[in-house]
Structures are given as C-alpha cells and as structure tokens.
C-alpha cells in the first residue's frame, strides 16, 4: 500500500539521523574560557571533595563562569548544586570528578555509577517539564532532540551540550569543561591526566606486531560496525590495528553495515562484540553463525565480549575499555 | 423437477418486514414474472431462492427446501443473474462463462473437456463465439447481458432466477434478451422466475404474474387477470391505463388533466 512507503522513509531518516548524531565528524570542543584566575589548575595533587563543598561566596571559587560549549556561550552564575544529566557519559564524568553530590537527577540510560540518582526521564525524548520539575541549575545533554536546549534556556536553565566526541582530545576537553562548570576543575584535570597516563601505559605494553593485526567491532547482530572515523575507532587506532570496516565506508559516515561474507573473507584477527548486553551475543553465538566457525579469531579464542555501554561512551571508563582491548591483543600474541 | 413453492416467506432485517408472508407456486417449466413498485420486495424474494437472505417460511425447489441444500447442490439447481452483475476487468468472456461450471468442479479440479464443450455451446447459442477472448469489462450493455445468460446456460440449472434482466437496455435490446430467454427456456426446459419492471413485457412473455406491493402479494394469476386498470391504478398510480393490442395487455402511464400540476 502506498502509505507503507512513508514509515519506510521515516525509518530510513530516523536511522540516518540517529547514526549521524551519534558519531560523524563534529565540532571539536573549544577549550573553556575562564573569567577568573585559575590558580587551582596547577594544583594537580588534588583537593578532596569536602574542601570544595564548603562553599564560600568569595569570587575566587570560580563563579560566575562563562564557558564556550558546543551549543554556544553558557553562563553559570554560581556553583551548581542541582545538576540534571540527560547524558550517560556526562553522568559518569560528573561522578568521576566528585560532582556526584551536586547531581539530583540523571536519565533512564545513565546506569553507571550505581549511586547515580536514576529517574525515568528519557534520553531520547526528554520531557521539558519533567526536567524542570527537578528545579535544576544546570543540565547536561549529549544531543538535542527537538529544541530541548532552547526550551530550557527560555525558562532560565543553563544547558551544556556535550555531543559524542570524535577524538580523545574532544573527550578530555569536555571533561575539563565539566570541571569548570561544576567547580571541580582540579579533579577534572586530574581525571584527564590519569586517563592519559593509563592509556599511554597500555599502549606501551603492546607487543610488536600489534600493528599487523586487524579487528572487527560489532554493534549489533546484523553486522553494523564502526569505522576509524568514530570515537571508539580512534581509540582502537592507538593500538595500530586495522579496522576491516574502513573499506566499507568511503564517505566516512562511521557506521556501515557489513556484508557477512566480507567479514568472513577479511578474517579479522580479533572480534569485539559490543552487542552482548543489548542482543545477547557471545563467543558461542558467533561460532554458530554460518561460515564463521572457520575464522581464525574464533579458533584462537579471540572473540572479545565487551560491555555495550563502556564501548559506546566517552567518559572515564574508556580506560576500562582500552585495557580490555590491549589485554586481548596481548593474549592473542602470547597464545 | 424445478417447480417452485414459496410458503409464507417473511424477510425482516430488523426495521420492519421487507417481504411479508408471501406464498405462491411456480409450475415446472413456466415463466413467472414478479412485478411491483420499487421497494416492493421483488429482489429480496428472489434472493431467498439462492439462500442469500435469512427468511422465515420455506422456499422449495422441486419439493426440496433451498435452505437445506449445500451450496454446490443448490447451484446445480438454481442459477441467478443479479440486477447489477459484476464484470471483472481483465476476465475473458470464455472464462466468465466457464464460471458457470463451478458447481460441477471440485475445489482443486480444473475444467474438463465436457465443461469446455458446454461453454462453447452456450457461447454459440448466444452468438458470442467471436467474443470468447474479449475482456468482459469492455463489452456493451447488450453484450454483457448475453454473456450473463451464457453463464447461466452453461450452469445448466433447471431453475433460472433473473433480477431485472433488461434494466440497462434500450427497447430493441430488451426485446432481444427476452426472446433469447424464452428460446433457452423452451430449448432446455427451464423454469424462469424474473423480476420485471416493464409490465407490458411481463404480459407478453410470462405465463403468470405475481404482483408485490409493500412486501405482500397483492395479486396473482395470468397477465390478463393481474394487468388490469383497477389493480394497477391502486398499486402504482391513478394515471395507469391498460389497452389491448392484438390480445396483449399494454400498460402505459398517461398524463391527464388531473395529474398535471
């Protein structure tokens, strides 16, 4: 029937929109602009949380502050104590830099850390009134479905948009900006430095010949993958491995669906499954796929089950993700 | 045997009876006309013979109540042409007429040689041989009437039920079709019951006439008995006149001084 074409087109548009908003090339986050002296930045062995929560209203606690977020200039008058986060990554960052006590509500997908105050605000279709009912003084989003930002700003709530990062520097920039916005500058800088150190150490531990390996990162059981033009692809790239999906994505859109026979033919050295939680995939399932049992990754036990969430966010747990990747390479090398 | 008996037929859809306690007989081989004003219940009465309406009372054919017959058995006994038959686009005349053989073919069977022969015979009888491959939906009114008659002829049922067989035809077309029906009737010994608007034609072609009005049978008998001015003026309108030409009642509606506004 003719009307059936319409949902088809809508479906295509939605998939395209979801994919493009989730990872194609986007603006790099500019470094935050501070209007006060940032003497605390140099102080990297930092200050424990209790010291920060005793807020004085002295002007040098960093507020008011104006930052250049990806959604424009955002001015925060005083240290926010009622933060609402509609972005799982921002939630993780907030808690990692000690701003947890300042957070009053997070969206239904923010499942880490445990102590985050989860509500049923939807990350995909956020309800303005639901957000406003928490009386927030700052809101974090990772994308803007339908002018949520404009609506919140119209009622005087400052909003920071931190979309999917493309490179590590993008992510670090967002973390530091989060620190500035919440009065946790020192903690955010420390987070960046420990993360950098961890990743560097992991890269150092890679065996020679890691660069000769190839990998396939699976987003769902119909063989959607990520290329090197995505955040997680950039992380993988630090190991020097080749991504078999790159050949399938000449336009750099980032999330191609691969033909089954191409994956088998490419015979990736390692297979990473990011669809373990959503879709129940694991090593046995992969081995049972038609024609896949002959793959070297299957015979070598190099099918790695990732945590879907960790593999899709750009927050502090990227070190966990990266450690798993490096460990799998080492295990393969020593096998 | 295809004599028909209507016994106290009443049809009520819920807002009053459309046919009310109608009873009469049709003898084997005769042509019975069912006449009456619009809405008198003629079509509904005829449809009881093909089990197309729920009714109380009994309609029997050859002594067997129609409602007790399985559809295939009934289709071999009663054939029917509705007021507005459907002529599907893209269906060949041959295939349309072949549908008349459906009651003789098992659900998974195809047509036999005998079926095909009977179809050709029907086409020839109605001078439709050259139309066999034509799309039924492209034919004229007169041609489609003949095609419908060919189908019921192929069906070889002893009772033929026609609902306004000449509705969309001009004068000569009408006459032609009625002559055809009469010829087929005598040739194959069929009993015919037909609803007719044209009272004069009913008088000329039919053996007897059943006059319905408001769902009830108000007059029944030979044309000369039913097609009279007292009867028709009461049922139809005061302007009806019946004159006799060559012994046939001719019914006309004349404009009079009183009937002009």
């Amino acid at each position: 029937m003719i009307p059936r074409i319409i949902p088809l087109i809508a479906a295509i548009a939605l998939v395209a929109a979801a994919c493009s908003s989730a990872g194609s090339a986007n603006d790099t986050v500019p470094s935050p602009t501070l209007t006060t002296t940032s003497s605390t930045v140099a102080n990297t062995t930092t200050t424990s949380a209790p010291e920060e929560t005793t807020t004085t209203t002295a002007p040098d606690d960093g507020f008011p502050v104006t930052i250049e977020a990806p959604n424009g200039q955002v001015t925060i008058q005083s240290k926010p104590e009622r933060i609402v986060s509609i972005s799982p990554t921002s939630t993780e960052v907030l808690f990692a830099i000690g701003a947890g006590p300042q957070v009053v509500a997070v969206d239904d997908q923010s499942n880490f850390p445990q102590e985050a105050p989860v509500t049923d605000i939807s990350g995909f279709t956020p309800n303005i009134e639901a957000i406003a009912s928490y009386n927030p003084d700052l809101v974090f989003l990772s994308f803007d479905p339908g002018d949520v930002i404009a609506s919140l700003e119209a009622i005087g709530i400052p909003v920071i948009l931190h979309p999917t990062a493309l490179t590590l520097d993008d992510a670090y920039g967002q973390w530091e900006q989060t620190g500035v916005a919440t009065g946790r500058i020192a903690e955010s800088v420390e987070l960046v430095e420990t993360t950098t150190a961890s990743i560097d150490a992991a890269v150092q531990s890679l065996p020679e010949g890691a660069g000769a390996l190839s990998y396939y990162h699976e987003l769902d059981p119909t063989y959607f993958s990520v290329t090197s033009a995505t955040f997680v692809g950039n992380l993988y790239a630090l190991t020097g491995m080749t991504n078999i999906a790159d050949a399938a994505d000449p336009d750099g859109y980032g999330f191609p669906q691969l033909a089954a026979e191409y994956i088998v033919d490419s015979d990736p050295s390692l297979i990473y499954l990011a669809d373990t939680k959503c879709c129940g995939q694991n090593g046995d399932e992969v081995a049972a796929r038609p024609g896949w049992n002959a793959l070297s990754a299957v015979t070598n036990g190099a099918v790695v089950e990732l945590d879907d969430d960790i593999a899709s966010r750009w927050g502090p747990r990227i070190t966990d993700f990266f450690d798993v990747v490096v460990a799998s390479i080492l295990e393969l090398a020593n096998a | 045997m295809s004599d028909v008996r209507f016994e106290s037929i009443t049809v009520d859809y819920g807002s009053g009876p459309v046919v009310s306690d109608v009873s009469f007989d049709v003898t084997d081989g005769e042509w019975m006309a069912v006449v009456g004003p619009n809405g008198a219940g003629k079509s509904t009465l005829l449809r009881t013979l093909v089990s197309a309406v729920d009714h109380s009372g009994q309609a029997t054919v050859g002594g067997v109540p129609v409602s007790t017959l399985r559809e295939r058995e009934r289709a071999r006994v009663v054939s029917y042409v509705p007021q507005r038959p459907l002529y599907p686009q893209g269906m060949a005349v041959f295939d349309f007429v072949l549908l008349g053989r459906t009651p003789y073919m098992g659900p998974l069977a195809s047509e036999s040689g005998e079926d095909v022969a009977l179809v050709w015979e029907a086409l020839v009888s109605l001078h439709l041989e050259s139309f066999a491959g034509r799309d039924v939906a492209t034919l004229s009114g007169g041609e489609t009437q003949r095609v419908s008659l060919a189908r019921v002829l192929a069906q070889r049922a002893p009772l033929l039920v026609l609902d306004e067989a000449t509705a969309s035809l001009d004068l000569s077309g009408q006459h032609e079709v009625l002559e055809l029906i009469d010829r087929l009737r005598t040739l194959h010994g069929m009993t015919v019951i037909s609803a007719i608007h044209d009272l004069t034609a009913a008088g000329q072609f039919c053996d007897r006439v059943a006059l319905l009005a408001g769902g009830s049978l108000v007059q029944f008998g030979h044309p000369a008995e039913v097609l009279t001015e007292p009867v028709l003026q009461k049922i139809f309108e005061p302007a009806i006149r019946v004159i006799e030409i060559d012994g046939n009642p001719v019914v006309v509606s004349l404009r009079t001084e009183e009937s002009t506004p």
Partner: protein
Amino acid sequence: MSAGRPVETRLHWWWVGGAVVVLILSVILGVMIGAVGLSPIGIIRSVLDKVPGLDVDSGFTQRDEAILWQIRMPRVILAVIVGSVLSAAGAAYQGVFRNPLADPYLLGAGAGAGLGAILAIAYGPDATAWIVDPLPLAAFLGAIGGVALAYVLGYTVRSGRTSVTLILAGVAVASFLTAAQTFIQQRESDTLREVYGWILGSLNTAGWSEVKLVLPYIVVSLLVIMGSRRLLDVLAVGDTEASTLGVRPGRIRLVVVVFATLATAAVVAVSGLIGFVGIIVPHTVRLLTSASYRIVVPLSILLGGVFLVFADVIARTALAPAEIPIGVVTAFFGAPFFAVVLRRGKGVVS
C-alpha cells in the same frame, strides 16, 4: 462497443518455462556475485564437486568454501523463498479481497510481527537463554496474532463478514499494533537501532538453518495457494454471485488467509519486513500477461523469487562491502521498474 484486445486465458507453457529459466539464471547470477570476489570457474568447480561421484578441486580456500556454501548459497535460496512467498501471498490477498492494493501485511501481519519483534528485543530473554531464538519466534507469533485479531474484529461486525469489513478491521488492528510498537520503542530507546534494522528487512544473517526453518511452512502454503487459484477467479465476481455459483466465499477467504499468513509470518520471522514485493510482482505479472489467477499465481511465485534475488544482489553489492537494507532496495529500484511496466504493459491492474 470497444474493440478490446484479446485476453489471455491459458497459462502458456513457454511462460512457465521462461520464468523457470529466468529464475535459474538469477540464482546462478546471485551465487556468482558477492562482496567477496570468487571466481566463476571456481564456483562451478565447487558445485560440481558436490555432485556425488565427482571429485573436483575448486581451488578455493576453506574460508572461500565457507563463504560460498555457508553464507552466499543459503542467502540466495532464502531470497528466492522469501520473494516467492511474499508474491504468492500478495496475489492471494489481492484475489480474496478483490483489492489491487492488498499486500501480505494487509490484515496486520506486518504490524503484529513488528510488535512481536520489539517485545522480544526489549523484554525478551537473551538469544542464548532459550533453545530457539526468541526474536523470530516472537515475530512469527505476532504476525499470526495480528491477523487473528483482525479476523475476530471483522467477525463481530453485525452487517456481515464481507471482504471490506475484514480490510477495515485489518487497518484498525495494524494501526493499533504499530502504535503499540512505536510506544514501546520510545520507552526502550536503546533498542531503536536493532528494531529499525529488523523492520527494514535483511538477509544478511541468513544461513541454512533459516532455510530449513521456513521450508515446511512455505511448501504447504504455496501448495494451498496454488490449489486455490481457480477459486480466486470465482471470487472475482463478488461474494453474492460467487455463492450462487456454489462456493463459500467466506470459507475460501479464511483458508487462503490462514495459509498465506502462515507463510508470510515464517519469512518475516527470518528476514524482517520486506515491503513492496507483495504488491509489485503480482501486478507486474498481470500487466504482462493476464488478470486470471490461474496465470498470476504460478508466475508470481517464480518471478517473485527472481525479483528478490536481484534486489538482494543489489543490496549486497551496490555499496560493497557495506550492506543496504533490502527493504530500501525493493522500494528504491522496484518503484521505477514498476513505473516502466505500468506504462508499457498491455494488461490491466485489478
């Protein structure tokens, strides 16, 4: 008084033969082409090697053999099956409902399958937890449930169980089930990608197990639909006249719908909702040959397979090694193709 062109009444043997030849050629083409370049000679040798008694070396690696026999071959076979079924079901639905816009999803089979799918994806157990994969099972049951619901609704209508009543009931049911599916999708927003991927249809994960799974349903249903083709022609004159010819339109409709839905549910379970095929193929056959179901049904079965094999070839090679969802291909390439047939065909549509 129009001089119409003669209408075809017979299923000419050369039509059937021609369609079979085209089908075989398209299968061969489908097996030869793929994202991975396998040499045609090697493929032929590999096929010959399977013949008992012959021992031919194809020159392929074990991996290439796996690609050919475990991935590409079942995928092409499944494309033939899915295309045949959707076309046969579409023709059958068009026949019993006397509606040229009818497709296999008319009575809510598609919407029901979609709802089943989202329920399985959002709330179902992991694929590994059960013996059978819950997603195809849920889609299958959902498709059948949707049609059953439409029938129950249609049968409760006082004014009669006509084909129009059923269609309207199907529209109501399909709309409701689609709304339910959308609602759940929005609430469980992390399932969006997986659900839309499934809805647009894909043969990318096809293997012999999927073929074996659907085959029994397909064979039985196609036999029933083929057997009913003469009765579909009888239904063309409308329910009233058809019953005066000695058939029971309501019962024919029920039987045909049951088997057409069974087959549709089975293929939807393994391939998702592939649209357009069920309407386009029967109409193309009508435009090129005849409106009689004795011709439309068998030719739709054969050419439906051809159409989907070609669509699948395009889906997996146009942007190789990336895949295009096959539902996009059938609409994108099917529509202009059908426009050409519409303009140049000599037959009629309904």
